[in-house]
C-alpha cells in the first residue's frame, strides 16, 4: 500500500508506465496503466490491444480462500503442508504448466522437481514442442523481432492467425512497423499468408496462398526442392492445392529479397506432420541463406512459455518433457510429456503451476487427473483447480508480481506490477513447498536408515 500512497494523485489514482502485458507472446512492454487505488482496479490500459485490455481491465481480485483442500477453504499454511505431503509420498509425480508465471517461479519449480525426482513439462509440449524437436534435428535461423522490424522486406505468415492471437504483431514487429531499412512501413515489405483457409490475418497480405488441409509438409518440401533448383512435377497442385507457378513465384521472391522471414504457428506444429512440418520450414529458411538472409521463427502464444523453455533448458539441458527419476535429467517427449503421462495413467500425483490442462487435455488425461492427488497454483478457480486435491490461490504475474518473462524471440523483459495482492506469488508458494518437502524427505530418510539398522541388528 505504501507504494500506492507515494504516487497517488488527487483522484487517488496512480500510473505505471512501460508495464508489460503478459497475455500473449508479443509481450508488449509499452503499457501505460492507470490504477484506481481505492477501488483496487486498473481503469485504463493505454496501448493495450483488445486482448490486453481484457486482461487488465477485467482484472479483479476475487475474494477466494488462500487455499482449498478437497474443495474446502483452508489457510495457505495448510495448503502448503498438504501439497508437501502429497509430493513427499508420490512415487511418480508430474509437474506441468509454467507458461503464465515468472522465470523466478519456474526456476524454483524445476528445483522442486529435481528434489522429488519427478517429471516436468511445460505447455510447450502442446504448442511448439514439435518445433523444439525439429530444432534438435536441423537447427534454425532466427532473429529478435527488432531485426525483423528493421530489415525484413519479405514476411511470410504460415499456419497462424496473429490478427486474432497476437494482435499487435503487425504493428509492432513485422507489417506496419517502421524500421531502419523499412521507413515506409508496409510499402517496404511484401506480406504473404499461407494457410488452409482465409483468416482475419489474410487481408493484411499481398499474396494469399491456400494450401490443402494436411498438405503443409508437401508444400514446404516442394518449395525446398525448387530453392535447390530441383524439378517439381506440375501435379504437385493436386496434392497441395497450390500451383507450380505460384510456388515458383514465391521461391523467386524468397531468393531475391534482402531479408526474409517465415513466421509459423500451431497450424504447422500441431497438425499432421508436426515436427516434420516444423523441421521443413526451419530447413527452408536455412536453405535460403545460400541466396540471401532468411529467418524462420515460431509465433508463441502464452506470455512466458518461452521463459519455461529457457529455464528448463539451462537447468537440465532439455527444453521440456524432462524426468528426474534416476537422479539426473532425462528427456523423452511422448514418454515424459504431461498429456501422455496423465492419459496413460502413469503419474500418481500432479502439480500444475499456472496452466489449465483440465480444460484442454484429452478426456483420458482429465479422467486420470481426477483419480490422483493434484496440486494447483493459480489466481483463478480453473477447471484444473476444481478437480484438485489442493488448490492454492496465487497472485497474478505481471499485474501483482514482478519478475522476468521471455518474449517469443528470447528477449527477456522485467515485469512491472501495478497492483498489490493479498495472495502470495507462485514463487513464494513453490519455495514454501520446497522447504517443507525438504524437511519431510530428510525425516523420511532418517526413519528409513533407522529401520534398516534395526533390521540389520535383528
Amino acid at each position, binding site marked *: 500500500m505504501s507504494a500506492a500512497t507515494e504516487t497517488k494523485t488527487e483522484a487517488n489514482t496512480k500510473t505505471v508506465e512501460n508495464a508489460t502485458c503478459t497475455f500473449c507472446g508479443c509481450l508488449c512492454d509499452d503499457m501505460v496503466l492507470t490504477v484506481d487505488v481505492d477501488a483496487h482496479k486498473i481503469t485504463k490500459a493505454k496501448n493495450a490491444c483488445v486482448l490486453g485490455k481484457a486482461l487488465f481491465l477485467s482484472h479483479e481480485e476475487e475474494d477466494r480462500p488462500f487455499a482449498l483442500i478437497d474443495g474446502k477453504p483452508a489457510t495457505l499454511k495448510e495448503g502448503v503442508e498438504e501439497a508437501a505431503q502429497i509430493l513427499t509420498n508420490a512415487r511418480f509425480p508430474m509437474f506441468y504448466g509454467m507458461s503464465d508465471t515468472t522465470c523466478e517461479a519456474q526456476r524454483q519449480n524445476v528445483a522442486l522437481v529435481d528434489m522429488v525426482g519427478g517429471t516436468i513439462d511445460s505447455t510447450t509440449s502442446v504448442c511448439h514442442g514439435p518445433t523444439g524437436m525439429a530444432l534438435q534435428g536441423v537447427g534454425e535461423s*532466427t532473429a529478435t523481432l527488432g531485426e525483423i522490424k528493421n530489415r525484413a522486406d519479405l514476411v511470410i505468415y504460415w499456419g497462424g492467425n496473429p490478427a486474432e492471437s497476437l494482435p499487435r504483431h503487425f504493428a509492432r514487429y513485422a507489417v506496419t512497423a517502421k524500421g531502419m531499412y523499412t521507413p515506409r512501413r508496409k510499402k517496404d515489405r511484401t506480406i504473404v499468408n499461407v494457410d488452409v483457409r482465409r483468416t482475419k490475418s489474410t487481408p493484411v497480405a499481398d499474396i494469399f496462398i491456400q494450401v490443402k488441409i494436411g498438405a503443409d509438409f508437401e508444400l514446404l518440401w516442394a518449395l525446398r526442392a525448387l530453392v535447390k533448383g530441383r524439378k517439381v512435377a506440375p501435379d504437385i497442385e493436386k496434392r497441395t492445392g497450390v500451383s507450380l507457378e505460384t510456388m515458383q513465384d514465391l521461391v523467386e521472391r524468397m531468393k531475391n529479397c534482402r531479408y526474409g522471414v517465415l513466421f509459423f504457428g500451431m497450424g504447422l506444429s500441431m497438425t499432421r506432420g508436426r515436427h516434420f512440418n516444423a523441421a521443413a520450414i526451419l530447413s527452408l529458411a536455412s536453405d535460403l541463406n545460400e541466396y540471401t538472409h532468411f529467418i524462420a521463427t515460431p509465433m508463441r502464444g502464452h506470455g512466458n512459455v518461452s521463459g519455461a523453455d529457457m529455464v528448463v533448458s539451462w537447468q537440465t539441458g532439455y527444453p521440456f518433457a524432462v524426468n528426474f527419476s534416476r537422479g539426473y535429467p532425462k528427456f523423452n517427449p511422448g514418454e515424459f510429456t504431461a498429456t501422455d503421462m496423465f492419459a496413460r495413467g502413469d503419474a500418481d500425483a500432479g502439480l500444475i503451476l499456472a496452466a489449465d490442462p483440465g480444460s484442454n487435455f484429452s478426456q483420458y488425461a482429465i479422467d486420470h487427473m481426477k483419480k490422483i492427488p493434484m496440486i494447483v497454483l493459480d489466481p483463478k478457480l480453473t477447471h484444473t483447480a476444481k478437480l484438485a486435491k489442493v488448490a492454492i490461490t496465487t497472485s497474478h504475474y505481471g499485474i501483482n508480481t514482478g519478475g522476468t518473462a521471455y518474449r517469443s524471440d528470447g528477449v*527477456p523483459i522485467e515485469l512491472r506490477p501495478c497492483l498489490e495482492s493479498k495472495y502470495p506469488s507462485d514463487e513464494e508458494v513453490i519455495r514454501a513447498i520446497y522447504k517443507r518437502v525438504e524437511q519431510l524427505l530428510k525425516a523420511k530418510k532418517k526413519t528409513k536408515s533407522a529401520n534398516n539398522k534395526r533390521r540389520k541388528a535383528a
Partner: protein
Amino acid sequence: MGSTLRIVNGRVYDPANNVDGKTRDICIKDGKIVKSVPPKTKTIDAKGMVVMPGGVDIHCHIAGAKANIARKLQPDDHRRDVMRRLDLKKINTRSGTGGTVPSTFTTGYRYATMGYTTAMEAAVPPLLARHTIEELEDTPVIDKGFYILMGNNVLLYQMLQEGRHEEIRNAVAWWIDSTKSYTTKLVNPGGDEPWKGHRNATITQLNDKIDGFEQLTPRKIITSMVSAVEDLGLPHPVHIHCNNLGHSGNYKTTLETMKAADGRRIHVTHIQFHSYGGKPDENPTSKAPAIAEYINNNPNISADVGQVMFGKSTSMTADAPLAWMLTRYSSDQRWVNADTECESGCGIIPFAYQEHVYTHALQWAIGLELFLLSKDPWRMVLSTDHPNGGTFTSYPRLIRTLMDKEFRKEQMNSVNQKAVAKIKRAHHMEREYTLQEIAIVTRAGPARILGLKNKGHLGPGADADITIYDEHEDKELMFSAPRYVLKDGKLIIDNHEFKNNHEGKLLHVSPDYDEGIKDVIRPFVEDFYTIKFDNYAVSDNYIHHHEVIPTTK
C-alpha cells in the same frame, strides 16, 4: 570472530608474489587470505601437495542466449554425460547434464571440481544481458562476469560515423553499467551489417567499408573502442575476436589489428584461430611464430590461446558468417543463426576435431606452438574458447601436453603427419612448462589481465579461492582431481569429495558517465529496438551476490 583456517606444509605456487614451490603456510580469515591466524586454528595438512590460487578462465561461453540454444540443440550431447543430484548431510546439489555445453549447475560444479573458481562468459548481446545474469546466478560455486558485444552496435556506428567520440565513451560506459557487465568485446567488427543486410556477405579487410556506413571500417571501430575503454579505465581492455577467424592467411589481419592498437592495451582472444598462413580457401599453414614474436615484443598485447582439443566441440560464436562458413566443413546437418537487433549476430554448429584431418591437426599444433613460443606467460594464457576449441574439462589434458614433452611427442605422432611435419622438428617443441608457468597461464596471468586484484594470487587481501593438488607424475590426473578446493575460504572439495555448495559472485564494473547520454540513446532504442528504453537496463533486482570491480579512473 569469523572462521579461520590454515593450510600447512604445502608447496606453494604463487607467481604474483614470487613464490615458486616454497613450503609456506596460507592463512585464511572470513573468506580472505590474511598474514596470520591464531595458533589454535583448524588446519589442512598439505604435505606432498601443491597449493595454487583457484583457476581463472578468461574466456569461455557458459551462460546466456547462445549457450542455451546450443543446449536445446543437442540432446545427443547430454544423454551420455549426466550429473546426479547429491543429497549430502549439509547440502543438496542440483542434478544436470554435461556434454560440450553443460547445464548451468553442472558447469559450476565441474569448474569447481577442477579447481577453477572464476570464469568469464565472453560474448553477450547487451539486450540479452538479463538472460545471462539469470543463468550465471544458477551457476554455482564460481565467481563470474561477462563481456558485452559492442563491435557491431548500430548506434555506436552512427556516433562514430559522425565523429562523436565523447558520446561514444559515455554510451559505452552506460552500456557496461546498465548491463552489469565487465568489459566490451569486439567480434568480427563490422561483419554483421553485410551479413544481415547484404545477402550474407562479410568483411575481410581492416580497411573495408562497412555496408550502410560509408565512413566506417573495422579499423576505425577497433581504435575508437580501444580509446573509449582506455579513457574509462575499465580493469580489462577491449577483448577482441579479430576479423577473418578461421580463414587461411588471416594472421595478417591479426597483426594489423594488434598494430592498430598503436601501443595501447588490447586483449586478443583465441589467437590460435587467427594465426593461419596460406591463401584463402586453401589449406592453412602455421604462422604461430610470427604472431608469438609480435606479442613477445609488444607488452601492450595480451592473448589467450584458444587451443583446439580433439573430440566433440560446439562452435558457438557471435561471428555468424564464420559459423555459416563452417557448415561446409561439418558433417552435422544442424546450423543455427540468431540475429540480435542492432547489436549482434550469432552462429552455432555442433563440431568435432579429428586427429586425422589436416586442418584440425594443424590447428591443434598451432595452439601448442603459441604456448611454447611465448616468452611471457603472463600475456599468453590458457583457454580453449570453451566449447569452441574444446571443453573446459579438457584443460588438465592440455596442461599435461604443455608440461610433458614425451606425452606431446606421442600425440604428435598420432595426428595427421602432413600437418605437423615441420612443427614436430621445431626447437620449441622441446620446451616443457613448469608448475610455476602453469600457475601463471591458468590463474595469475588471467587475473592480472582481467585487472582482478583479489584473484590469481595468495597474498594477504586476496579472495581465499585456493586449489590444492596431490603431486603426481601424470599431470592430467593431477589437475583434473584436486584434493581440496576452497572458494571464499569455504571447503567445497574436501579430500576429493564434494562437501559444500556455494553461491559465487557476479563481477561487474560500473563506470561513470554523463547522464545526458541517456537522451541520446533513448530515441534510438525507441525507434529501432522493440523494447522501451526504460525497460532496457538491468535493474538491481537481478543483482544478489556481487562485487563491483573499480575502474582505474
